[in-house]
């Protein structure tokens, strides 16, 4: 397949993310506006950060007058999961293309782009990744702009229904491999159970969702790696 074809495939595969982002960043735009964040600043934030949870937390704290260091620490904790995702991505991408691609790809490594990239069959090329980014980033920025400008152009019912789109996407990515492998199925089930318990049990429920993702990812992936080591490079899909 030539580079452009792979790029177009990335754009096509990224379309669900485009629509999902449109909905989520629309809510972000509405929130930013309600907190008196200037419209241009909200849109710029989406374009420069390209991360959901971090931005939602940031606008609330910024309107409450957060300091720069506190803000940096908060973003670090909320977004630390990307460290694990980029580590996984480093093993998925082909080492043939020039190194500078990694600097561009890093910017686009959101939860959703990452999810699509790692589920790509075969060795990941920058062109496919850029295709995903081409679909995802405009969705994120446009949604934010629509949210701050119009405030309310999508009916509440539609917005509520779209809220589940990105989660459904994650499900569509983890279920097929879980169906093929009992080990993966067990890991998916235990991860969800553990996450549920962490959100309900006393003390544990006080852990922020960003930390919960990191703690559980490290613990469960390490346990799985010790119990069920992956034998060959080919196992890595």
């Amino acid at each position, binding site marked *: 397949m030539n580079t452009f074809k792979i790029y177009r495939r990335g754009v096509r*595969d990224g379309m*669900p993310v485009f629509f999902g982002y449109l909905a989520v960043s629309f809510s972000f735009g509405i929130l930013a506006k309600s907190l008196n*964040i*200037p419209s241009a*600043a909200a849109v*710029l*934030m989406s374009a*420069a*950060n*390209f*991360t959901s949870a971090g931005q939602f937390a940031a606008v609330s704290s*910024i309107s409450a*007058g957060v*300091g*720069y260091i506190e*803000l*940096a620490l908060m973003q670090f904790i909320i*977004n630390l*999961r990307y*460290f694990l*995702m*980029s*580590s*996984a*991505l*480093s*093993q998925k991408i082909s*080492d043939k293309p020039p190194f500078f691609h*990694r*600097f561009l790809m890093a*910017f686009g490594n959101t*939860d959703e782009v990452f999810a*699509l990239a790692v589920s790509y069959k075969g060795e990941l090329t920058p062109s496919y990744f850029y295709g995903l980014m081409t679909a995802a980033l405009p969705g994120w920025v446009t949604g934010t702009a629509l949210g701050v400008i119009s405030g309310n152009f999508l009916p509440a*019912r539609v917005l*509520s*229904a779209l*809220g*589940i*789109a990105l*989660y*459904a*996407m994650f*499900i*569509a*990515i*983890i*279920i097929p491999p879980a169906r093929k492998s009992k080990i993966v199925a067990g890991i998916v089930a235990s*991860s*969800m159970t*553990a*996450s*549920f318990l962490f*959100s309900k049990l006393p003390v544990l429920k006080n852990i922020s*969702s960003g930390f*919960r993702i990191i703690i*559980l*990812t490290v613990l469960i*992936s390490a346990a799985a*790696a010790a119990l069920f*080591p992956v034998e060959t490079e080919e196992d890595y899909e």
Partner: protein
Amino acid sequence: MNSNIFICIIVMAAVTYFIRVLPLVLIRGKIKNRFFRSFIYYVPFVTLSVMVFPSILTSTSSFISALIGFVIAVTVSFLGAGLPVVSLFAVAAVFVSELFIR
């Protein structure tokens, strides 16, 4: 607001980009160590599962509609549907069930 919003945006963007780019720059080749290779192999499954559940249950305006959407998404995906179809079914399930709830 005490802090300048544009400096805030730069601070946030720098921290987030740093976290994303660091592993891609540090880990250049394929990891040879079997434990770490296996660890990295399992990371996406665990991370995505933890992010989905239980957060998905509060992703819509009602717990019931979210639960229905979750069950539909898992079922449709299990039956072999691709990503866009699974997403559409979940969104449709939430939309339709909320017509009855409210």
